[in-house]
């Protein structure tokens, strides 16, 4: 897809060190985010979803971690191998990021205003006054009326919801083309969660940016995304539009995940639990990483890593990794996909 905003191909990351034991938390991630699209990356803890986001921003702690292979193209530019100076210019300017716990991700001893303003001055070259005015506007934009007063506050003087709005204001301050939101509502209560999700969607509409929404919560992903990628053990196992992935999941893992969510509508029925546990990055099974827990696994699954193929058209037509089939594609990495 030539006009993809962000295109990750075959990204592999390993961790060195005694305790990490040479683990490979990312084993070839393929991901495409189109302009203005809300793309959800969903997976369990340790699946590599946050790490993928970190790689895009270029904030990987380099001594223990190492990018083994792959490419990350953003707005047509290869990010891997780019000088740190150049990458820094993208961070905050073209790619914004919102994190899970706003209370931790804000500098506790710095006024909110200063934290918003510094990126504006750095990236947009605004004067301090101009930056402050812009910051106040941004706070209004994220639903914090009376922004000027809030600029003078310290993070601890704000409620959890307000802090997350401030984080979002910071992330979108330079009107980035891509906003990475890493579990932005996990630490919030449900009522606040919905507000923040609405805010993200509205901002997307107003600023025309794409959102890479990283989450473990299938219900939230269902509520917000346009496209969904499911990651398991450092590899994308399924990717497609929200309707396709939730409506007709191809990968047994996706299917099992969806069936395991408790909801009122399922009262009285047993949940479809996935047996076993998520393997840690140092002990990923050979072949399809999911095969030990997969009820359908056959011999081939044990031996051969399945390729990510496009099943949108029905029969398993082999598509090059990354899928050039565009927005309508439905990729899955399973030997058995589409058979049953």
């Amino acid at each position, binding site marked *: 897809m030539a006009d993809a905003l962000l295109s990750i191909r075959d990204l592999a990351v390993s961790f060195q060190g005694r305790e990490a034991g040479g683990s490979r938390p990312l084993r070839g991630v393929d991901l495409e985010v189109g302009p203005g699209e809300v793309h959800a990356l969903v997976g369990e803890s340790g699946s590599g979803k946050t790490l993928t986001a970190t790689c895009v921003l270029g904030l990987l702690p380099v001594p223990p971690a190492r990018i083994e292979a792959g490419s990350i193209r953003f707005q047509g530019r290869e990010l891997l191998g780019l000088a740190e100076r150049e990458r820094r210019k993208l961070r905050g300017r073209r790619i914004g990021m919102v994190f899970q716990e706003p209370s931790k991700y804000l500098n506790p001893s710095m006024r909110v205003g200063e934290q918003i303003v510094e990126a504006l001055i750095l990236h947009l070259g605004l004067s301090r006054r101009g930056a402050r005015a812009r910051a106040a506007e941004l706070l209004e934009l994220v639903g914090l009326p009376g922004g000027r007063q809030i600029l003078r506050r310290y993070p601890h003087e704000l409620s959890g919801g*307000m802090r997350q709005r401030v984080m979002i204001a910071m992330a979108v301050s330079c009107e980035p083309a891509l906003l990475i939101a890493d579990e932005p509502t996990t630490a919030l209560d*449900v009522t606040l969660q919905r507000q923040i999700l609405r805010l993200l969607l509205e901002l997307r509409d107003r600023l025309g940016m794409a959102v890479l929404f990283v989450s473990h919560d299938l219900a939230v992903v269902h*509520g*917000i995304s346009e496209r969904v990628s499911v990651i398991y053990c450092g590899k994308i196992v399924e990717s497609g539009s929200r309707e396709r992935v939730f409506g007709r999941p191809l990968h047994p893992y996706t299917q099992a995940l969806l069936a395991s969510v*408790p909801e009122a509508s399922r009262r009285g029925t047993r949940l479809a*639990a996935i047996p076993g546990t998520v393997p840690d990055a140092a002990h990923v099974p050979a072949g399809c990483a999911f095969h030990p827990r997969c009820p359908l696994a056959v011999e081939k699954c044990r031996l051969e890593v399945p390729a990510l193929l496009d099943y949108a058209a029905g029969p398993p037509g082999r598509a090059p990794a990354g899928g050039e089939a565009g927005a309508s594609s439905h990729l899955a990495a399973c030997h058995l996909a589409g058979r049953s």
Partner: protein
Amino acid sequence: MSTPILEVRRLEKRYAASGILSRSRAGLKAVDGVSFAVEAGSTFGLVGESGCGKTTLARALLYLDPPTVGEVLFEGTPLGGLSRAGLRGFRRHMQIVFQDPNGALDPKMSVRASMGEGLANLGVPRAERERRTAAALELVGIQPAHAGRYPHEFSGGQKQRITIARALSVDPRLLVLDEPVSNLDVSIQAQIINLLLDLKSRLALTYLFISHDLNLVAYLADRIAVMYRGRIVELGSTARILDSALHPYTRRLFASVPRLTGERIAPKMEGDSEAGDSSRKGCRYAARCERGELACHSNDPELHDAGGGHLVACLLPEKNDQGG
């Protein structure tokens, strides 16, 4: 109607102000006059957002952190009247499973030793203890052969199974489950929930299930109590709470829950604002309530029966026009 297995009457838990500077928090009421009853054999769900007092309530009703005011009756026996030793004897009937499986097992003790503690307290001899420990582990799907291992050798899901087995080792009748699956991965969560369902039917247990996850409670509970700021604001059967909630907070809460079966979220921010604290007097929810009237700010509504055992604490409950 038979005696409920657990009855909580006007329970309060206050925390004394500590230090001179924290006057503002003087006598903070974490739980403020909560009453409810749990029928034997049922699953009673307690939901609320973080900080609403649900965990404090659980610890208080188990007398792990005794309540400041109020009564807890187990099968009609008031726990407050018991001596220390008497209370210890009673504990075997009510057990608790905590949210964090990592902290729930003593890292310095083998699983066997942790498991045997409750039985040892009951004076069960060692051989019998080991047998019953093994049986309890078997029950929750842990190989009894692994009983000699230490907590760090197990995964989070396995640890939670072990803590459930430990709770069950003394044959309790009531199990308080305080967010037992919140710290677990989605795929493991379902395993534990299924296990809990199995155990309940096999051992004729009663569950008091505490969670912030409305989907989960809606899936599991027979009756649901909704807590807001130390109070129960609404209590009723799961169906009533889901379909015809009377309290505006309950409605809003359940409307906010993302569901797999739900609609895509609309990018509109109508009425979203950061509400401040509500006044000390009056309804706690008044400041955030879209229906709040003047009276709500001065009168504190009591929990009252709106018909059919559906209790609500609201001066202006939703018109319940969906029948029942």
